[in-house]
């Protein structure tokens, strides 16, 4: 899977600061397009936007990312869209991964992490393609990677962001469980605005389960199994540019039930032997 140049030891404690730009020695070209991705010098930051039928909002999101974090590469993962999401995003200047069929946020994220891992990015930020996340908050997320492997953008400080009923209970339960599991305050574990350091990218590009809630709940369980450090940073959200979140009670109740089920089943991963990163001493 990895060639010799890419094979470097990743361990708990590797940070953006001390992971030297790994592809520097085999950097052949500065061109963004026209060369094979592996041969070009990787920017240190990759922003991954999983997108499913987001042609209305994706161009604005990409444009915002490019102006707010000009040193980053923007990658839109088109998760089997039936509209022109990929074309629109490419015209806006993003790199595109096109999945042949819809695999969900977790699967799309994993594809983006895999690309980031292969090309040796020092940090990857996950950001929604619907415009609810502010690109200007990305530097704060990336900065926090200096003392963590996964940084979660926590949304509760956003004025007017209120969640009620079963969905709120589910979020509170998850917050309580994961705060205890990771030994740090985690109040918004289902946020889709996150930053991943190289150790987390290595593990999650391999193990993230491509199924419902796999990208949030199970990702944090896997992080614990590999002793990855997780922290949260407050972020301000924006009203979605297109589409609306569902607040229907039945769906919310279903969400609670599914979260609890996934939570307890995925906790089984923590039973038994501790996993090690490839570079970790035995």
């Amino acid at each position: 899977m990895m060639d010799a140049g890419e094979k470097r030891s990743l361990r708990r404690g590797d940070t953006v600061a001390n992971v030297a730009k790994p592809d520097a020695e085999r950097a052949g070209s500065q061109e963004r397009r026209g060369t094979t991705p592996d041969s070009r010098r990787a920017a240190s930051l990759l922003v991954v936007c999983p997108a499913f039928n987001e042609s209305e909002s994706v161009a604005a999101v990409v444009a915002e990312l490019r102006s707010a974090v000009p040193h980053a590469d923007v990658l839109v993962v088109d998760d089997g869209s039936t509209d022109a999401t990929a074309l629109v995003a490419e015209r806006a200047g993003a790199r595109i991964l096109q999945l042949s069929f819809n695999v969900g946020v977790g699967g799309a994220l994993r594809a983006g992490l895999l690309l980031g891992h292969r090309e040796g990015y020092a940090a990857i930020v996950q950001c929604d393609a619907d415009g609810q996340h502010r690109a200007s908050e990305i530097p704060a997320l990336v900065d926090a990677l200096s003392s963590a492997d996964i940084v979660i953008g926590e949304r509760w400080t956003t004025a007017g962001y209120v969640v009620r009923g079963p969905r709120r209970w589910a979020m509170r339960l998850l917050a309580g469980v994961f705060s205890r599991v990771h030994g740090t305050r985690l109040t918004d574990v289902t946020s889709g605005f996150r930053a991943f350091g190289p150790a987390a990218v290595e593990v999650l590009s391999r193990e993230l389960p491509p199924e419902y809630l796999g990208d949030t709940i199970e990702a944090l369980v896997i992080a614990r199994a590999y002793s990855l450090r997780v922290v949260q940073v407050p972020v301000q959200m924006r009203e979605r540019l297109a589409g609306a979140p569902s607040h229907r009670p039945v769906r919310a109740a279903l969400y609670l039930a599914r979260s609890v089920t996934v939570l307890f089943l995925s906790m089984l991963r923590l039973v038994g032997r501790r996993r090690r990163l490839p570079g970790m001493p035995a």
Partner: protein
Amino acid sequence: MSRTSVVGALGALLVVSSVVRLIMRGRLRVQYAALWLVIGVAVAGIAVVPGVLDATATSLGFTVPANFLFFAGLVLLLLVGIHLSVALTRAEDHVQRLAEEVALLRERMGRPDRHSG
């Protein structure tokens, strides 16, 4: 041989022959076929020599041998179902991996298509 033995043996023969036919046509992998062949042969054995079933059932405390048969059959089918779920999970994981690899290759090739698929 009693009439029930004949029916049982015919049923087992049907299972075994269809499994063999599926392997010959390349529509069933030997890995999964082996399981069904073992089950088919076991059913045939019980049909031809019902005494084995009676003796086993009695020694395990079943008063009606048929109940033992139903119980064993149910447990067996549940295990087969779990085995298939495991196989499906692995297959889905491979499909997902391949979708990712294809996406990465397409990215290298250049321009995206208007519609994916």
